[in-house]
């Protein structure tokens, strides 16, 4: 699907505004929440607002509940489009969180207990205790069908990658066997992690992707974004000596990417990873053939000053971009132009512009640069997400204009997505 220079995209999740969350869950909505939801709907110009207004206002009958739910999810889609992003999803509003949503529908896991995340946040850690089993779940397909029917922009579906699922789970199924075979528990963990990851990829994630591909209408391409926050966390998975001892030719993460991304008509693959030291990725990412775009976190840790030199662009994501250039990395890079951590404030559009221009300068190819957010926006409020969207899309347009002015580049020229 053709798009413009420096396309923009968010990563996946939107703030779970209480009003919309209750609409989606078909739970009672307070008067204040109804007013808030409907005024947001008016602001972003949601179609058929009168129809939905009645449903939201009279949230009581079964039919009204379905309409109110539809309004909630439609709102997320229109919110993203209204801000000018080129790719769209449902804000992950139907999802509890990125680990649990995927694993809870898969056979072979049991709950272990609450695991700390940060501050007062936690997630339900699960242990794999039996063979991984695909349960023919419809949840991704249901999400996709609705978005496909309503989106006006290219659809991008975030799915948590199997390597992250494995890293965040306990393994009481594969690991015990390896622990009894290997004296070295580090080696045992590595071997078990590979088996778990690739098994999950083959039995679960690829199945989800094939199901989504079948649902496509009118041959419209769809992007599958594999979310991998754990991609580079286990540093010994990238140690050459250990890989050799284990008999692996590639790190588990890289092998997983190749395994999870079979060529399927109309499916384009992206990767997103944040809060990591990306330097370990190279040169291994050069071995990954099927991923078109790698989106990374660059705004977090960067200076908030405008400028297109190494002095201002100090985030470790920019270090990765410089290394990527040195290694001859030719894939598209999603450059995080706005932080989205809890408490983040919208960036100045000039800073967004310069983050884009700096990346284009380093890579010496503007078509390699996509303006993304650092991560999902669940920890923000809707107002902040709105302001970030405005700044990002304004900054991206400023970058297009600047590029045209500086280099005579025709920014209206369509580039392939």
């Amino acid at each position, binding site marked *: 699907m053709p798009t413009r220079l420096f396309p923009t995209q968010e990563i996946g999740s939107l703030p779970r505004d209480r009003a919309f969350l209750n609409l989606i869950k078909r739970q009672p909505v307070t008067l204040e929440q109804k007013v808030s939801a409907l005024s947001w709907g008016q602001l972003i110009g949601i179609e058929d607002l009168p129809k939905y207004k009645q449903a939201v206002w009279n949230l009581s009958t079964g039919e009204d509940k379905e309409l109110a739910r539809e309004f909630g999810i439609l709102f997320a889609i229109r919110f993203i489009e209204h801000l000018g992003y080129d790719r769209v999803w449902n804000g992950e509003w139907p999802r509890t969180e990125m680990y649990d949503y995927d694993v809870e529908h898969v056979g072979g896991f049991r709950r*272990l*207990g*609450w*695991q*700390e*995340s*940060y*501050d*007062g946040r*936690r*997630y339900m*850690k699960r*242990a794999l*205790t039996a063979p991984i089993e695909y349960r023919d779940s419809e949840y991704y397909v249901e999400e996709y069908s609705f978005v496909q029917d309503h989106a006006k922009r290219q659809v991008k579906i975030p799915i948590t990658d199997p390597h992250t699922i494995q*890293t*965040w789970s*306990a*393994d*009481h199924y594969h*690991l*015990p066997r390896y*622990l009894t075979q290997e004296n070295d*528990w*580090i080696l045992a*963990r590595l071997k078990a992690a590979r088996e778990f990851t690739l098994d999950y990829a083959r039995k679960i994630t690829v199945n989800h992707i094939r199901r989504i591909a079948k649902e496509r209408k009118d041959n419209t391409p769809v992007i599958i974004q594999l979310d991998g*926050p*754990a991609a580079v*966390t*286990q*540093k*010994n998975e990238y*140690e050459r000596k250990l890989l050799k001892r284990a008999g692996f030719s590639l790190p588990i993460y890289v092998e997983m990417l190749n395994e999870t991304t079979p060529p399927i008509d109309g499916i384009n693959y992206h990767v997103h990873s944040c*809060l*990591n*030291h990306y*330097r*370990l990725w190279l040169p291994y990412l050069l071995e990954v053939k099927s991923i078109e775009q790698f989106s990374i976190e660059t705004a*977090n*840790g960067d200076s908030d000053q405008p400028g297109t030199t190494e002095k201002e662009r100090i985030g470790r994501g920019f270090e990765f971009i410089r290394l990527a250039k040195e290694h001859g990395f030719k894939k598209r890079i999603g450059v995080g132009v706005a*932080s989205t*951590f*809890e*408490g*983040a404030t919208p960036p100045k559009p000039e800073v967004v512009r310069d983050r884009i221009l700096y990346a284009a300068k380093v890579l010496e190819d503007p078509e390699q640069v996509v303006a993304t957010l650092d991560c999902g926006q669940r920890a923000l409020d809707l107002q902040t997400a709105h302001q970030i969207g405005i700044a990002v899309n304004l900054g991206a347009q400023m970058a297009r204009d600047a590029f045209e002015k500086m280099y005579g580049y025709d920014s209206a020229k369509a580039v392939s997505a």
Partner: protein
Amino acid sequence: MASFGACVIGKYPRSDQTWDAVKRHQTDPSPKTLSALEEANRDDSRAFIRLQKEQQMSPIIDGSLDWDDLLKPYTGSLEGVRVGGIERWYETNTFYYTPIITGRVGSREPILLRYTRVADLNSSQRPWAASLVSPYTFSRLAKNHHYRSRDELMFDLAEAQAEDLKAFKAEGCSQVHILEPEPAVREILGLNLDKDERHQWREAIRTLLKKSNLTSGLFLCYGDASTLIDDLLDFSVDYLGFDLARTPAESLAQHTFSKGLMLGALYSDISLQADLLEEEPGRIASLVRKVLPASDGGSQKIYLTPNHELSTVSTRGEADQRLKSLSRALRILQGAS
């Protein structure tokens, strides 16, 4: 011949009951739910102290259960520091708030004492330890908008933390565990510390300890510290601690240590179910024996510990089980020594 002890380091996981109280307070931030949360934290910490006593841990710790992260008491309380965005805590799926340095760092009064359950620790009638993140690691994880160099920041931090240790000593604390992930992690990432940086690091640890004279352990985790060992021998600490999941026991065995050792032989990054938990004490003891040549046949003490704090990789149920493994490993080694 070496003697053995066992202890837990850093932050310990909250119980599910405490998590429920956290959740209730988040949903309804009222004085009533706050009071219930404080009560849950207190009870949880006391239960953890009891468990350590039962399992012969010494020194004991309070588990820092209500800290948001290991840096947060300082990030939220030091002058010249404000709370920034979140960053991943090394190899885990947990995060810390980045300290943003906006002015000269300091404190008019001790900070950590306010965040430590001193009364409960003292009433346990056991030696107890305080835990803190070292000035080196803190200064490297911070976002510096004020100092000309990170080393200047590190020394101001060390001065402020030294006041904390002095206050701890006055309150009956007997040991300090200094958590030091950053140098070993930098070695893995190829961002190796040069000679001058190693010297400054050592001096910062000296500054940290100079006012209290507490028995001290410097614990290097989340990375392979093999290449740092020669320098570490000159540090003014009583114990050197290593994450044996990342620093090979064989590397340690090649050195002769004149200091005590804290051996992170409990591989907490993996989760074990019942049958393997049975085998774990033997595994821990066997790993520790691999390092024994390093103890110089002297009279130093060797502590068995988890390979890093447990809150970042374990649920409470898992952590309690593993603590018992550590205790059983201790009994195996005591029988053998």
